[in-house]
């Protein structure tokens, strides 16, 4: 589906740029240096690279220790090994003391884990982290946005998590406004029949669905909620008040992340019909990324169908 660019390489590129200006930047890996092709960083900054071996809990604790002494550690490995294997270390020793540890999780989503199978497909990371107070969570759409996100979290105080992909990640066409941490971004504004809220590498499919809906005479807004936490409630509520109908689309279990966050916001602040598109609380299989997304009901047709369902609920069709 269209062009691809590596969100993983984008991390190393961003860190190289950051490290040049900021001597506090440290890269921590748990035998995960190849995940982000970190060799250029290691060659340039050997003293600012730590590899603790296949030991994620230790990596997070070590990052906490570095951050408590004023450094800015970035810990990179697979999403699930940060958020599940080292979950308690992230919660108790990073989030609770509010330490300046930045975590970058690869293979975020079923599609990004693709052929590896469930052990390396991570569709719970965002939901888990969202329950930790003070955690900033970013789900960028593509490599260029990952680069901007890495720089943005480096310039904020406190813990943050960025979700990245497989390295074969679709490029978001025409994002319009630049990435701004904490602000939802309206990617398409064709009308007020309904809003499609989405984030991550699924966005090209959402845009394709919006085009198809357009041809069917259904006018949508597409809103990219790249910062899942803190949620940009103001922008999201403004959109909801215009469209009075919402579909969420995410490569994550239907429980815990964007769909849940929107359901909470909608239920408490402005009740309108909502349909959530995502992995329907099942463990997926190995497979090619695009085929997997289609198989597990994250296809363009599924998004179109969800839009039609929500419009029926709205009483529009």
């Amino acid at each position: 589906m269209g062009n691809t660019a590596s969100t993983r390489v984008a991390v190393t590129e961003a860190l190289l740029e950051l490290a040049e200006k900021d001597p506090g930047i440290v890269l921590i890996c748990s035998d995960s240096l190849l995940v982000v092709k970190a060799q250029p960083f290691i060659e340039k900054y050997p003293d600012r690279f730590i590899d603790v071996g296949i030991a994620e809990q230790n990596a997070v604790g070590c990052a906490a220790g570095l951050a408590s002494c004023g450094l800015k550690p970035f810990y990179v490995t697979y999403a699930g090994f940060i958020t599940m294997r080292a979950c308690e270390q992230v919660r108790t020793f990073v989030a609770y003391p509010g330490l300046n540890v930045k975590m970058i999780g690869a293979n975020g989503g079923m599609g990004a884990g693709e052929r590896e199978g469930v052990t390396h497909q991570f569709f719970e990371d965002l939901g888990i982290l969202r329950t930790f107070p003070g955690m900033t969570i970013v789900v960028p759409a593509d490599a260029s946005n990952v680069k901007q996100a890495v720089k943005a979290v480096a310039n904020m105080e406190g813990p943050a998590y960025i979700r990245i992909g497989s390295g074969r990640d679709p490029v978001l066409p025409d994002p319009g406004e630049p990435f701004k941490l904490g602000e939802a971004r309206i990617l398409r504004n064709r009308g007020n029949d309904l809003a499609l809220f989405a984030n991550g590498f699924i966005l090209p499919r959402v845009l394709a669905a919006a085009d198809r809906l357009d041809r069917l005479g259904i006018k949508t807004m597409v809103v990219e909620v790249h910062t899942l936490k803190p949620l940009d409630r103001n922008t999201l509520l403004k959109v909801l008040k215009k469209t009075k109908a919402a579909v969420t689309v995410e490569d994550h279990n239907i429980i815990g992340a964007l769909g849940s966050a929107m359901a909470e916001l909608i239920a408490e602040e402005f009740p309108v019909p909502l349909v959530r598109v995502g992995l329907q609380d099942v463990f997926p299989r190995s497979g090619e990324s695009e085929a997997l997304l289609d198989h597990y009901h994250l296809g363009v047709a599924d998004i179109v169908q969800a839009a039609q369902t929500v419009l029926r609920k709205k009483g529009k069709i």
Partner: protein
Amino acid sequence: MKQNTVEKLENTARLLRRDVLEMIFHAGDGHPGPSLSVADIVTALYFETLRIKPADPDWPERDRFILSKGHACPVLYAALARLGFFPQTELAGLRSLSSMLQGHPDMNKTPGIDTTSGSLGNGVSIGLGMALAARMKNLDYSVFVVTGDGELEEGVVWEALMAAVKYRVGNLIVIIDNNGMQSGGSLGSISGLEPIMPKLKAFGWHCQEIDGHDFPEILHAVNEALSKKQQPSIVLAHTVKGQGVPFMIGDNSWHKRVPTEEELRVALQALGGGE
């Protein structure tokens, strides 16, 4: 070592033990046994070894102290109060809603606490990060981690032991409060951890074994550890859970138990008078 120094430390440890029992009695909650076993180690470090400034708890060049066995924090709080990090009147508030003294150490709420702790097994990892930070920032502080023995059952401890040797962090010193007991009983009855020392040696740390209630031995071991600049050090300190209070020794119910008024009176009498 000067006899005077040892006597002073012994007296300070006695006062800290009294503080611990009074704190737990007033709080109606807490862990007396583990606090008493580690009291002499905490005393030796805070009142003789650590390079710290109580008036400037965030001084970047200070030595770091991590109480990985965070449940023993009453003795740490007592030490910090007596050093002037915060008023001693705070001790009475232990574990209460408005207090700066949390049930387990919180680096943001209590002056002098370098690391949030209480979830067992994590102190060595955090200490490793702090030790590496000294190298990166070209500072010469040391990092002291005090762990329990039971918490060595956590896998993350051994992850950190491996990495510390790889990075040759000579400024990282781990002292194990080896009282032989854990929450549910003796180490031998709960886990397959023992023997401990051969495992530590096999991981490549500089290892010493001492009596954790003997001040000259504690300080000698710490000084030797500090002299090892290219190798992290472990001190396996043999201690007694409940040390100083005869009726708590050998009775593991004092792992977490509140003394009655009468028990407190008897315990304080055993420890000897106050100031």
